[in-house]
């Protein structure tokens, strides 16, 4: 028995080790074990020796053909050898590999096309912003939902009842929330001119602090800092349905004349908008949440769909710098359509090219 095991120990060439990416943390070890031996292996160990002398033994799954060692340092070298056991007996041992260092790179070549696309879009944007600075007037097609914003504010003024404004249920890292906060600024300025009250219950603590700042600033800009009431921009709660229950109840109790739902929403969207519809409020929604759009479209008077939410700030302010970027978005859309159509036509003629990202 002992003799048999000893005979089975094979000394083979060292494992191949290479650096799989530029993170400087990983090394991939190729486990070239003869197929004849594979099925007998019950335990497979990889011994790692670091250039600082530290030796570790890694227990890995016996069938692996390659193993990627994580969390290494790009300032040290490593070498490996393979040990394979069958029921506790060593049956295979390789020589040490060469010392290898995980390479740390400053640019990921695989992401180059993405980088070019990003730069292209940025340049287009800067170009159109410069054009806007030169005061070239831009045509913008009317968006019903945005023309309705002023009408909706006017209604609240006429009826002498408040506006409720919701910034969505995501945090500040979600760009939809930022778009919502920009619209809040316009709505507050406009409502402030007519001394119409605007109530902003908040869901996210950070969004609350920013919303408060924005409303305060908006009132200051129109010269009415006295209109700011800290109790009207407040943190309600950060539980999804607790918030929905609170806002729905508030709509019913205040009989708000106008409700705005901007930003990103989840399942609570319909609780908010259907309650609002039941009080007879005029409602304007704007979201990029694909799953919740249908409910707003059905229950609100006007809905900004997806990209329209992001265009809203530019539309409402009519500031040339902001409208300039809309032109950039349009050009990007045109380019995308061109790429989709062109590559489709080419592949109809059996020409399959891959255009970097596509």
């Amino acid at each position, binding site marked *: 028995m002992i003799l048999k095991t000893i005979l089975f120990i094979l000394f083979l060439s060292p494992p191949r080790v290479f650096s799989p990416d530029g993170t400087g943390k990983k090394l991939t070890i190729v486990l070239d074990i003869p197929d004849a031996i594979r099925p007998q292996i019950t335990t497979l160990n990889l011994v790692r020796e670091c250039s600082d002398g530290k030796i570790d033994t890694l227990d890995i*799954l*016996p*069938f*692996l053909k390659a193993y990627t060692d994580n969390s290494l340092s790009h300032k040290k070298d490593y070498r490996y050898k393979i040990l394979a056991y069958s029921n506790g007996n060593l049956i295979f041992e390789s020589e040490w590999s060469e010392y290898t260092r995980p390479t740390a790179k400053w640019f990921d070549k695989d992401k180059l096309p993405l980088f070019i696309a990003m730069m292209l879009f940025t340049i287009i944007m800067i170009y159109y912003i410069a054009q806007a600075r030169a005061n070239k007037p831009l045509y913008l097609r009317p968006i019903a939902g945005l023309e309705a914003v002023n009408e909706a504010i006017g209604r609240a003024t006429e009826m002498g009842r408040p506006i409720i404004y919701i910034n969505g249920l995501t945090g500040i890292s979600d760009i939809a929330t930022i778009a919502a906060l920009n619209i809040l600024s316009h709505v507050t300025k406009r409502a402030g001119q007519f001394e119409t009250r605007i109530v902003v219950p908040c869901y996210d603590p950070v969004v609350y602090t920013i919303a408060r700042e924005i409303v305060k600033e908006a009132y200051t800009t129109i010269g009415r800092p006295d209109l700011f009431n800290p109790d009207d921009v407040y943190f309600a709660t950060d539980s999804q349905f607790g918030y929905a229950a609170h806002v729905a109840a508030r709509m019913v109790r205040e009989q708000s004349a106008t409700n705005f739902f901007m930003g990103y929403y989840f399942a609570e969207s319909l609780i908010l908008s259907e309650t609002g519809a*039941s009080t007879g409020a005029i409602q304007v929604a704007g979201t990029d949440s694909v799953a919740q759009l249908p409910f707003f479209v059905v229950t609100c008077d006007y809905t900004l769909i997806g990209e329209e939410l992001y265009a809203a700030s530019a539309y409402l302010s009519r500031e040339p710098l902001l409208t300039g970027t809309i032109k950039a978005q349009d050009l990007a859309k045109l380019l995308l359509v061109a790429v989709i159509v062109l590559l489709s036509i080419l592949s109809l003629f059996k020409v399959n090219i891959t255009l970097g990202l596509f």
Partner: protein
Amino acid sequence: MSVRDFFIRLSKIDRKYIYLVILIGLIIPLIFPPHFPQKMSPQVKRVFEYIDTLPKGSYVILSADYDPSVAPEVHPMYKAVVKHCILRGVIPIGMTLGVQGAGLALDAFTEAEKVLGARRDTDYVFLGYQAGGAVVILGLGEDIKSVYKTDYFGTKTTDIYALKPVKNYRDIALVISFSGSAIPATWAVYAYTKYGVKVAAAVTGVSAGDFYPYIQAGQFIGMLAGMKAAAEYEDAVNRILKEKGIGKFSTSAIRMMDANSIGQLLIILFIIIGNIGYFLSRRRK
């Protein structure tokens, strides 16, 4: 009041009456179940018939990748599929990629022991939870017993009688991933695309919409979607129980789905009534 006026008034009815109708419409079938005759939808049928026609002694992996929050929809499916396998002599291998799935899956196997007298490690195997997600899925394609060194109860997998002939996906007839999230897609990509094992999904109604493109692409052999599929599967298993004279039917999903269907049909009725009223009032003008 003419019929026309009736419909016009009905189309402007206060929403409270709608809520009342819905409430009554759901409570009554929950107390007095109507037992709508079930007819299997094609996706469910594909999964059911596939298992139904497997030779005795085949292996099926049932991965309980769900948690209690989606249990009302998904758990009845898991229980029904476990029973179906055991009734047909197919050996289910239970496992989970999420910690919370272990307790739920165990519940299904315990029920199968009680109702069908299934024996652990002979008629079924329960491996339990293994951390790693996609890595586990890939590992099973190479060697199940080295990914799971022991089963849920601590028995060495190499000692489990039922697992003797099983090495990896080549010995598995089907994998079903039960989930309320995107995990079935991970199974499709790693287990089906890489190893060619047949995969099916059992998911909640809400998430089902995301999986239709996978079905169109043939990456799942079928899909159990939402309460409706749970009811259909439960009913089909009940029929086998009846054939074999075992009895002990379970009806939790069927009962809930009957109420569900009535609610949905009420909405349809509302839409029709609303449109009749709207149409009539427009004509008057």
